[in-house]
């Protein structure tokens, strides 16, 4: 082993220089000399490139896994360009790359503002909701019969709890239609007709399968109120819907195994 140099860099200095080299392909050999005297030589640079490539590919792969529909819509080349820009501003901060895409939808909203493609940020928001949904805990679903056991005059005070994986995404763009049309390897929805208007989506994972539902505006408003913990009576009032909407929404939610808690429960 060679003797250490007169002024040896410490561990932090070595790692900081290594990190700078990983981030910047154009960094010159002088900065990397802290790593090895032959830094900057073709052989060293080529070997160091293995690490540069790994750091980039791992990050890219994480976003490709999380946003497959977005990638399909914008094409691989543009997706990579966006990912490179995003990574420069939002590098990974954790040892688990699952979270690498958390800020991507909000970043896209700024990056694409005013371009005519800002709807892609909402599509990304929907895909991130799917990612979070699949990672959430799943609870045993209740049947609508358990609701039927509660006295009718007590129903207004009842609250329901939904699957922990349930979340809501609404957009002024038809993101559910785009998402739905791009499921499967060879699917392609073709050009997106933004004129068809906004959509209200509910994402949930049941039995390890993520589903994305499209709700009409009234159902969606009511579900949001119930999801926020309001009792039936308050939710109907704040969502400005009638009891028929509540009955329809609950029938759907129970049939999809989305309801996991009822409070207060029926006596006995």
């Amino acid at each position: 082993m060679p003797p250490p140099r007169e002024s040896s860099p410490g561990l932090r200095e070595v790692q900081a220089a290594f990190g700078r080299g990983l981030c910047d392909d154009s960094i010159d050999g002088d900065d990397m000399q802290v790593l090895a005297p032959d830094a900057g030589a073709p052989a060293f640079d080529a070997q160091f490139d293995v690490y540069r490539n790994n750091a980039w590919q791992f990050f890219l792969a994480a976003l490709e896994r999380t946003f497959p529909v977005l990638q399909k819509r914008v094409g691989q080349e543009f997706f990579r360009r966006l990912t490179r820009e995003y990574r420069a501003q939002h590098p990974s901060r954790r040892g688990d790359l699952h979270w690498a895409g958390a800020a991507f939808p909000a970043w896209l909203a700024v990056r694409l503002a005013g371009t005519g493609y800002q709807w892609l940020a909402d599509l990304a928001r929907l895909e991130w909701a799917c990612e979070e949904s699949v990672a959430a805990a799943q609870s045993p679903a209740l049947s609508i019969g358990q609701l039927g056991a509660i006295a009718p005059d007590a129903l207004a005070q009842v609250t329901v709890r939904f699957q922990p994986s349930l979340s809501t995404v609404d957009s002024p763009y038809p993101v559910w239609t785009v998402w739905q049309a791009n499921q499967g390897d060879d699917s392609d929805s073709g050009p997106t007709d933004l004129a068809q208007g906004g959509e209200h989506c509910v994402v949930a994972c049941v039995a390890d399968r993520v589903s994305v539902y499209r709700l009409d505006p009234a159902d969606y408003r009511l579900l949001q109120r119930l999801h926020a913990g309001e009792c039936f009576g308050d939710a109907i009032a704040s969502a400005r819907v009638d009891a028929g909407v509540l009955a329809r929404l609950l029938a759907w939610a129970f049939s999809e195994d989305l309801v996991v808690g009822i409070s207060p429960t029926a006596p006995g």
Partner: protein
Amino acid sequence: MTGEASIASVNCDPVPARAGIGLRSQHHESILTASPRPAWIEAHTENYFHAGGPAVRALEKARELYPLSLHGVGLGLGSADPLDREHLGRVRTAVHRFAPALVSEHACWAHVDGRHYNDLLPLPYTEEAVEHLSARVREVQDVLGRQLLIENLSAYVSFAESQLSEGEFLAAVVERSGCGLLLDVNNAYVNASNLGLDLGAFFDAVPPRAVQEIHLAGHSRRRVGGRELLIDDHGSAVCAEVWELYAHAIRRFGPVPTLIEWDNDVPALDVLLAEAARADRLLEQAHAAAA
């Protein structure tokens, strides 16, 4: 089930000194009905951090049948930045939940100045790095309440500052932290080719009783900068030279649990099981020689 819960039914056997395979999503179903069965399975800890989802469910099912080793890739134990306590907490939760017989991580760093590179980056083999890594390993062992195995890396660059050989470095970390070693034979082979690691000296320096698990994997060859570089990509079968080195390793260190590690271009389960059977034949010979 919450992330803190432990699963109801687990195979409580220790990981035997036989061949196991890595659990990959492609085999979540087939591993449950595999015939013959691998002796044990290994899973990447970070893939099972979530409260729910198909991967977690698959490991819960597989855990009922197989002894388990949890292998972490994200702690970056040698990083100069502070230890990521949130990540460590998730490792602790996974260890509690899946009750593995072995828990391992790498002799590497991964993050600096708040930025994570999500790779297994090499450390300079210095006294400072030995002390730093040993302190981190002790800290993790204290939090987990158990011994950690530390794996030797494959590397593509070495550092001018290194004062120790790789084997001496690992031996010092074992001595100061009380950890065990996960010896990746393919990594040692890759380092011999890429960086001129003296395999004889490496094996001599590694304390034999510390080696509690071995990894075997494939690598690819790439021409870069006018020379051939071996890339530890876990995307192919174990090569003849690594099998030979493995036979030498278990003669020196004794028969220990051995993993067929194939993470990219994952083949059919039968292919993995055939590789595991080959390792098992060598392990049987080592068992017989040790008897």
